[in-house]
């Protein structure tokens, strides 16, 4: 039971970074400027690297011989445990960076907490990943400020992105059975405990960006427990997984 919950939790961590990593990689070669193109590709690669560690450990703990690649490429939508936020389409560049910042501001706190996990393997992965996430949140935060407090055009787009994505923030802090089990085993923090730090960070950045956080706290949910993903995830998986589906077992 305890291992089942840990497997679920690790799939959540790994699927977040997998799905967001793939989304961000969709900008490769088509970003507005070369410097951002490389920066986004770096971010995507960081996230995919973290995925290998999370899903690799998930496979070990599950004990059915599934590798990180098996979990990433051979599961279908209903087995994914990522937040709805990260599967949302890229939209314009501003929308991508807003999604990135909202995720990063949560991610860096989650990883920080996980460095103190009672499971040494999880603590080690978190210690490696938190350095990458700290840079990600700095970069995405600066870009949100730059574009939000930029021209009328960029400000309008950033406000629209925040309005669009804010309803996906709440899911990050919902505490369910898996989280309860992780909390009582000392493996992971109570998601609620991350909220205060997230709120003050995000409020600061949005204030600097001259953006208004929507007052409505309605939250879409169903991603991290796999009950109800948005229609976008399936479309993304057809792209991400097509090679393994078309040529099963293909390798380098």
């Amino acid at each position, binding site marked *: 039971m305890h291992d089942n919950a840990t497997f679920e939790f690790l799939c959540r961590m790994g699927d977040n970074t997998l799905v967001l990593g793939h989304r961000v990689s969709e900008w490769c070669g088509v970003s507005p*400027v*070369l*410097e951002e193109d*490389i*920066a986004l590709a*770096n971010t995507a690669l960081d996230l995919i690297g973290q995925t290998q560690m999370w899903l690799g450990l998930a496979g070990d703990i599950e004990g059915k011989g599934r590798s990180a690649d098996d979990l990433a490429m051979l599961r279908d939508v209903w087995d994914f445990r990522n937040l709805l936020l990260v599967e949302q389409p890229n939209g314009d560049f501003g929308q991508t960076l807003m999604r990135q910042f909202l995720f990063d501001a949560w991610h860096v706190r989650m990883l920080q907490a996980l460095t103190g996990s009672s499971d040494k393997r999880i603590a080690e992965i978190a210690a490696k990943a938190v350095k990458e996430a700290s*840079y990600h949140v*700095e970069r995405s935060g600066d870009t949100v400020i730059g574009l939000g407090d930029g021209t009328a055009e960029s400000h309008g787009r950033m406000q629209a992105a925040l309005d669009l994505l804010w309803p996906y923030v709440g899911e990050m802090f919902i505490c369910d059975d898996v989280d309860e089990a992780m909390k009582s085993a000392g493996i992971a923090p109570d998601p609620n405990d991350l909220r205060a730090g997230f709120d003050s960070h995000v409020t600061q950045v949005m204030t600097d960006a001259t953006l208004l956080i929507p007052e409505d706290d309605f939250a879409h949910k169903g991603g991290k427990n796999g009950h109800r993903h948005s229609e976008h995830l399936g479309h993304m998986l057809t792209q991400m997984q097509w090679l393994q589906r078309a040529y099963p077992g293909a390798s380098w």
Partner: protein
Amino acid sequence: MSAPNSAYPDTPEAQPEKPKRHEWPLWEIFIRGQHGMSHRHVGSLHAADAEMAIKNARDVYTRRNEGVSIWAVQASHIAASSPSHKGPLYEPSESKVYRHPTFFDIPDEVGAM
């Protein structure tokens, strides 16, 4: 027309009277490597401000663990010699081999220099 003292004097500027819009300033990036004693020029990039130039340099020029320190200098702040002055600037020293300290016998007591 090349602007005097530009870091790229041989590259004509696109109609200086009509500045290009929507283009971030150019920055020259200098990186000190793991074992390097000094910063070396590695290339250039565009960025809106100094902070962004450092971040972009981190992503463009240090992804393979190249460096431990970054300097960014706005290209327009670099004064450069002009290639067309190559003759008067550098050729006179070609014929002055005596400026190399190779004509002295170094006493053994001095040791390695």
